[in-house]
């Protein structure tokens, strides 16, 4: 027999697939437009692999700590769970800070989203991922409060599990952004 939590997790997987399709559209758009620089800066001139690598490492480590947090939740151990999710949260914030710094460098160099179709597509794809990360961070904050104040129940564990799924999903999308946007941009 299916429990209500199983049904919710299944539905959340379906939602993640819809989100993935949304990202597919943005990726396809980026690939179509990435050479249309309209004599503005190109990907190779603009992107720094150092920043991109820092972001990647931050997110990958955050995925790892998120899993550790999840393990603690399954064992119903509050303090380690709080600790690991707090570390995950900080890593997420650090990722956003690096990303926004990168964006501000581009803007300062006159490479804003209005410069060319390539830059519109870049800011939209990476920005949408950043927006998702922000939503994930808000969710994590709420989860931290819930873990701190309430006992673990089957529905609450299921909810934290879905948050962790969301976080890993964003990590996965970032891996593709790193490859398609930064990696392929560097090779141009």
């Amino acid at each position, binding site marked *: 027999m299916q429990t209500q939590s199983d*049904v919710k997790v299944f539905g959340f997987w379906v939602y993640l*697939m819809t989100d993935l399709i949304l990202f597919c559209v943005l990726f396809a758009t980026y690939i179509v437009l990435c050479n249309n620089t*309209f004599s503005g800066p190109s990907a190779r001139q603009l992107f720094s692999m150092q920043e991109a690598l820092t972001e990647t490492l931050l997110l990958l480590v955050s995925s790892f700590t998120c899993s550790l947090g999840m393990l603690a939740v399954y064992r119903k151990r509050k303090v380690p769970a709080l600790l690991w999710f707090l570390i995950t949260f900080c890593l997420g914030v650090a990722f956003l800070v690096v990303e926004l710094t990168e964006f501000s460098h581009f803007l300062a160099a006159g490479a804003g989203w209005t410069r*060319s*179709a390539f830059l519109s597509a870049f800011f*939209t794809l990476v920005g949408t991922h950043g927006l998702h990360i922000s939503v994930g961070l808000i969710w994590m904050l*709420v989860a931290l409060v819930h873990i701190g104040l309430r006992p673990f129940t089957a529905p609450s564990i299921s909810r934290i599990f879905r948050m962790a799924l969301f976080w890993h999903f964003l990590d996965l999308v970032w891996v593709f952004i790193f490859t398609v946007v930064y990696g392929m941009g560097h090779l141009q």
Partner: protein
Amino acid sequence: MPSNNFFGKLTSDALPHVWYTLGGTAFMVLLGAMVALFLTKTNRWSWLWKEWLTSTDPKKIGTMYMLFAALMFFRGMLDALMLWVQQALAAGGQGYLTADHFQQIFTSHGDIMVFFVTMGFFFGLMNWIVPLQIGARDLAYPFLNSLGLWLTVAGGILINLFFVIGGEFANTGWLAITPLSEREFNPGVGVDYLIWSLQLSGLGSLLAGINFLVTIIKKRAPGMTLMRMPLFTWTSLCAMVLIISAFPVLTATTFLLWLDRFFDMHFFVTGFGGNQMMYFNLIWMWGHPEVYILVIPAFGMFSEIVSTFSQKKVAGYVSLVCAAIAITLLSYMVWLHHFFTMGAGANVNAFFGIVTMVIAIPSGVQVFNWILTMYRGRVIFASPMYWFMGFISTFIVGGMAGILLATPPVDYQVHNSLFLVAHFHTMIIGVALFGIFAGTTYWFPKIFGFTLNERLGKRAFWFWLIGFYVSFVPLYLLGMMGATRRLDHYDAATGWQPLFITSCIGFFFIASGVITQIIQLVVSIKERKKHLDKTGDPWNARGLEWSTSSPPPFYNFALIPTVTSRDAFWQMKQKHSSPKRLYKDIHMPKNTPMGIYIAGAAFVFGFAIVWQILWLSLLAALCVIALIIKLSCNEETEYVLPAAKVAKMEKLRTHADAK
């Protein structure tokens, strides 16, 4: 970039000042005032709130979807009337509408009929019937169901709000094609109204799509394997798969268009390296599956109706399921046939042309199966069967026209002509809408407990069928003669006017059909005592939905049935089996106003972003987030109906039925 005023772009100029916005505003205010007066006089505000607006019962949500879709249908009909009269009058001259106003009308006609009428009716019918057919008490996520409805309604209000505030709608055609919909050519709020209305209702459809998919996969009664599911549930499942995979594309694409307009980005503009044809590709990657979302559920309804009224099982159940799945898969691979003339090259066009023609094979399989179902059956010609017979004729005509359009050389001749307009109206009216009318007549007694008046139903059918052919056959001819779509006037020397007038006359037949349907509803409600359905099975039908009473109790089934074969209820009737009445506790979802609150905040967000009132859109977005967080803190969303109480209620109900 956005304006810095406190009220964004909103000024007193936005208030209504031309005849149609004044008329629309007056009508809406009057309608609202009448409803408010009625509710106050009969003291029904709290009843409306508690029993309906906050309800999580799929039968009630379904009814609200149907009512909303019907309301929007009249709105779309009014647009259609204005378009037809203009074209009948506009030979050589200007007609009575300006070109710009005419363009706004056909844009809103298309959006309203597709997003709010056809999809609204289908979601209504699915809410009514799918849980009953699979032996479930409610959907997988009752709250999301309520939210989906209210987001759709929010989108519907937003698309009509331009009457009151703004005075202009998009003049771009229903898909807001670029670069016409870009800020350079459309600086007003019309396109923004279109974008945000579709964002809200699209999100609602996506939530409903996920909900129904999970419900059908996870909440079937024991023994109801996939290959025992009724065909309407099967085709609903196919449509939900399409919604889940296609609607994110719509969300993303219209979002990119909005970024172009609001943040001065360059996705689809003509300069700065933008690529306008990418918009056509993206929007039709959603748009073609969307067309099948509109017709596939109708196939399932007709399968059930033809089987019930032929009094035998449907011919070739497995092949019908395979056909539905084949159409679902193929519909992803044909989007380019909407723009063969883009010039993608002969090989690309040939590929998409051939895949499009392949769709005729599963469609043909279905038609033969339906006809074979009638063969050697004892066919009862009730009004749902009339719609079915009409549908067979329109489906074949429309399908043939589709095959013609799928041939690239032919398409080059009739692309964007009235031939195309006639083709897709044949599909949307002759398949989707006829299916909706057939299904509504068929399942109406299940939800309301009495059948609709048959005589008036058949009369409405004849008005519709004749009206449909009188309206759209001239359009096929005009298209062949070279009349392009979206013509606000044409040269008198073309000699087209008689055909346009004939087409316009057809509208009045259709309108008579609609009026007859309204009379049918009123008469049926008045005479309901005579047509009560006391058995729960007025048509001697086959699916599980008929095994419970009409109307069903709010928990649908006191005992979840166990299924052993296809046509589950038919088998139960043959075996005269009645399960032992061992009641268990029932878990039911509580009602919740959160759906309406969140959709309300989302509506404010949409309105604020259309008018670029930044502080208000930020506030509304924060409200949405706060409401969702509040929602996550509430873990008591269900209540338990104890077995003893169920037994008592069942006893009362069956006792009342026996009386």
